[in-house]
């Protein structure tokens, strides 16, 4: 059931009505039932895998909690006779026990994800080593359950936090199942944190007109981005990337910009719909974007784009690797051999490469994604090494940072750098992606832009006008958003203006949405990850 389908809207309408009609204490149970319906509708076989994740994580979370509880009871019972050293030793002992349970859970769940998502890729890589040229390659017919990357990461984050003693475990398996399977998050995240989501997920919710209205407005805004902009420009992106022999040089540059717009409108639009649905239900879901295309460098961009994934990797992978004992030892050795400056940065760089390799792999089982991840990590490291140079430059020209023109240059530089890396998303393999990128500099065909070539990509001049105006609205919206919530500001305006704008947006979605033959509103890009 796709977010953009009529059956989904009907499902939502029924859910919203029943949600506020039934006694409030049953609301979370209704949500769980809605999750089951949503998931079964997507394919019953996927239910097996999410059920394994729910059951294994629940049982292990209870084991971890019981170890924590026994430790506390032991401390309480022996408070008087235990020395500080004994307490620390006992803490370390219990920690080792909970770590074993955690590792078991990680192996089960990441194991499922690895087999379903990466088995065929691994076979493809290994096959040539064992088979002859004429041997047919093996292909496993595995289904990839909806949202498996998202719910696996969300649940494993919960288990790691539990092991760290950040909060107590959820004791009700049905409430836990609701956290793992909350349907708006299954399509493309955000990857929620338990301690943030549980504040509102299980609570009874009153019929709050303002929250419901804000939620619906947010959904409408998301649909505008998705069906008016993303699904329309998608046709041109597909045509440009699908015929690399014809579309080189300046067309690759156009494709980069079009894809940047498509990806932004698609992904942030989907997240707007997700957060809007949750808000109508009275549930707060964390933001996943903070105007990323206004970032002045790549590190900042990754603090503002797909925030929930970036923070997951930072907290559960980057820090544990970079702060591990082997990395600290490596740092000491590197200082002795390579000097103090680079030596102390080496653990950061090693962790960066590992994290970005895995981030690439998370996006898909293909070399394109792995190379994309590694290149992103490499660029972050290079820019880090250039920091002293930037500092000297800014020290010499201190007023430059405040100049609009310089800030614009930084924003555009980051935008084009990120867009260049995203070429790897678009073409069928790594070599082709590089060939197309370099054609921007080697094939000087700017003149062809004037020959109407862009009008042969499956969309018309009117479509370009709609996309262009849509992009202008997005930029204007982002600029207004810098001064606070747009919906709060709109709320202060007279009724006629407020409802006039909302009805206009609704009409724009209905009239200018990309529907019908030639348009593929079937999936969100991040749904496949």
């Amino acid at each position, binding site marked *: 059931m796709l977010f953009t389908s009529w059956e989904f809207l009907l499902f939502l309408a029924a859910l919203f009505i029943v949600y506020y009609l039934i006694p409030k204490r049953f609301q979370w149970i209704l949500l769980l039932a809605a999750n089951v319906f949503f998931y079964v509708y997507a394919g019953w076989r996927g239910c097996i895998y999410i059920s394994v994740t729910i059951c294994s994580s629940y049982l292990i979370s209870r084991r971890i909690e019981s170890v924590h509880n026994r430790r506390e009871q032991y401390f309480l019972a022996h408070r008087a006779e235990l020395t*500080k050293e004994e307490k*620390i030793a006992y803490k370390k002992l219990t920690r080792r026990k909970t770590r074993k349970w955690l590792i078991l859970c990680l192996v089960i769940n990441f194991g499922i994800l690895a087999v379903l998502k990466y088995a065929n890729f691994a076979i493809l890589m290994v096959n040539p080593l064992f088979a002859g040229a004429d041997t047919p390659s093996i292909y496993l017919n595995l289904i990839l359950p909806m949202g498996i990357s998202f719910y696996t990461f969300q649940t494993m984050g919960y288990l790691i936090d539990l092991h760290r*003693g950040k909060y107590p475990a959820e004791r009700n398996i049905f409430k836990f199942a609701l956290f793992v399977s909350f349907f708006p998050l299954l399509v493309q995240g955000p990857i929620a944190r338990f301690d943030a989501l549980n504040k509102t997920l299980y609570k009874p919710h009153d019929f709050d007109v303002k929250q419901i209205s804000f939620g619906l407005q947010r959904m409408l805004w998301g649909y505008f981005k998705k069906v008016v902009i993303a699904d329309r420009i998608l046709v041109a992106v597909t045509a440009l990337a699908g015929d690399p022999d014809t579309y080189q040089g300046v067309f690759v540059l156009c494709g980069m910009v079009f894809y940047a717009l498509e990806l932004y409108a698609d992904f942030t639009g989907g997240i707007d719909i997700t957060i809007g649905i949750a808000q109508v239900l009275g549930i707060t879901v964390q933001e996943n974007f903070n105007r990323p295309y206004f970032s002045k460098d790549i590190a900042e961009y990754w603090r503002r784009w797909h925030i929930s994934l970036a923070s997951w990797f930072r907290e559960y992978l*980057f*820090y544990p690797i970079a*702060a591990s004992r082997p990395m600290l030892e490596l740092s000491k050795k590197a200082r002795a051999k390579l000097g103090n400056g680079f030596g*102390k940065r080496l653990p950061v760089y090693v962790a960066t490469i590992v994290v970005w390799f895995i981030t690439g792999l998370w996006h898909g089982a293909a070399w394109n994604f792995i190379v994309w991840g590694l290149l992103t990590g490499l660029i972050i490291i290079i820019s880090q090494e250039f920091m002293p140079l930037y500092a000297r430059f800014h020290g010499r020209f201190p007023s430059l940072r405040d100049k609009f023109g310089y800030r614009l240059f930084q924003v555009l530089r980051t935008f084009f750098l990120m867009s260049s890396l995203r070429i790897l998303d678009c073409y069928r393999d790594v070599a082709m992606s590089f060939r197309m990128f370099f054609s921007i500099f080697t094939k000087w065909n700017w003149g062809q832009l004037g020959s109407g070539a862009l009008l042969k990509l499956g969309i018309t001049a009117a479509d370009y006008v709609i996309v262009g105006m849509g992009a202008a609205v997005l930029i204007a919206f982002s600029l207004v958003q810098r001064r606070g919530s747009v919906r709060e500001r709109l709320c202060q305006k007279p009724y006629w203006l407020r409802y006039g704008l909302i009805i206009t947006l609704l009409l724009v979605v209905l009239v200018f949405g990309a529907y019908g033959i030639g348009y593929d509103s079937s999936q969100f890009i991040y749904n496949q990850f």
Partner: protein
Amino acid sequence: MEALVRILTDLHPDVDFMTTDKLVDSKILDSFDIVTIIAEVDNEYDVAIPAEEIIPENFNSAKSLYALIKRLMEEDD
């Protein structure tokens, strides 16, 4: 404490670490800085800061970071 402030000042010479108490919340320290500090602390105090202790409350000021180091040193003894 002096050694810690020196480590921090090496990273951000323009920040007054004796008074600032929102180093993470105000985004003065990023994840790269934090890991660099962890490596420096290990070098200076011979104490490893585990990943679960990398939370804003522990890194928001030189004082809170020093309190963490002292606690971890006591646990190590």
